[in-house]
């Protein structure tokens, strides 16, 4: 038998039980195709180790921070219409006003300079996966997408909708140029994300005993946080 003081048992009970079982269960991930997901995850990890991590490291080391900031701002500005449409679809008028004002404030410089954050209009990303969640759609089974990484059935479907919401997909100047622009943008987003999270990912990997399970748990918490619009995690979890 385990030795337990009454107070310790009580705190543990609070942690695992009273902390609203429903809220707590919300943090667990349904992963019915775990063996397949683990396989794709391993392949993604190899690609990350061989290509992405060294590229992100070089990008971080060679490109000065202010220029990386400009790249980040521009990529975020390009996604602004998606944030605006999804805010509207969610019926979140505060987010709609916020994202529209942010888009307008950053547009004179084509999003290269983030004036909006200085005005109190910080990034507020909204995507169709979040919209579906607001509409009451459950996240469904956990999926690891080739190259794209952790997702779930709901968020993966959302990616497709976001693709069609993106105005840059519909501005056809010349098919060839369009394709090159989108490819550059996608590659830029991946490298920018990897470079900004370089140290975090390194720490996660080095302190994990099951890297796959840890990423799965973090993805779930991160999505819940975005869906609840950064409501403190404590209120979501406890």
């Amino acid at each position, binding site marked *: *038998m385990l030795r337990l*003081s009454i107070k*310790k048992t009580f705190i543990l009970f609070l942690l695992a039980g*009273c902390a609203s079982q429903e809220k707590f269960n919300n943090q667990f991930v349904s992963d019915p195709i775990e063996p397949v997901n683990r396989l794709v995850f391993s392949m993604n990890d190899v690609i990350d180790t061989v290509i992405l991590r060294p590229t992100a490291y070089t990008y971080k080391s060679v490109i000065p921070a202010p220029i990386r900031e400009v790249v980040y701002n521009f990529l975020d500005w390009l996604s602004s219409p998606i944030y605006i449409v999804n805010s509207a679809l969610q019926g979140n008028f505060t987010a709609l006003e916020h994202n529209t004002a942010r888009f307008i404030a950053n547009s004179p410089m084509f999003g290269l300079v983030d004036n909006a954050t200085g005005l109190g209009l910080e990034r507020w990303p909204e995507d169709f996966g979040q919209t579906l969640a607001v509409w009451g759609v459950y996240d469904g089974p956990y999926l690891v997408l080739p190259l794209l990484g952790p997702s779930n059935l709901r968020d993966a479907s959302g990616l497709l909708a976001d693709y069609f919401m993106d105005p840059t997909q519909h501005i056809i100047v010349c098919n060839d140029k369009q394709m090159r622009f989108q490819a550059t943008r996608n590659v830029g987003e991946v490298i920018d994300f990897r470079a900004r999270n370089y140290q975090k990912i390194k720490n996660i990997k080095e*302190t994990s005993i099951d890297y796959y399970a*840890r990423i799965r748990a973090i993805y779930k918490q991160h999505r819940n946080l975005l869906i609840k619009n950064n409501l*403190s*995690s*404590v209120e979501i979890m406890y």
Partner: protein
Amino acid sequence: MSQLIRLFILFSFIAWPSSIATAAFDASSAVSEFADKAIILMSYSDLSETERRDKFEQLVQKYFDLPVIGKFLLGKYWQTATQAEWDAYLKVFAKNIVYTYARQLDQYFGQRLVIYGIRKNGRFDIVSSRIVSPKNNEGVRLEWVVAKSNSTFKIIDVIIEGMSMSITQRQEYTSVIQANAGSIKALVDALSRQITE
């Protein structure tokens, strides 16, 4: 000689009884004391890695409720654990928590923790804070879940940028145990391997 004096000051600082340090000791005092001491410890370059880890372990033992966190991370499996498994787990788990938290705090070297709020959530005290870099105003948002245990306040979870360390690790531990047919020994082995690597 000067190194000895500095080590003495550092040791005294870490071992300083909380009741003397603050008359009105509450959840936010526990967090700020822990963070101040941890950040000083991380920035103290005269210590070897092993000495630093040992001192950090003392801090974690003092300010975190490790038995409670340990049981929480084991999930339903702590109820089926034998005394021997539990003892082995708790020993290696404490080392692992120290390793994980030390890695997290290492990246905030040279920064400071600003506590800007404390609130009640059920029976927990939630201390909101931000690790602020002196170079810019950007900071990392940290929330500390604190519970009262034997009239002292102990930290039971740290939420970094919205990610709960306890919930994340609990799912990871569960995954390892499930993958090994419910064996707690497999988890203990995995935790041991990680800290000796």
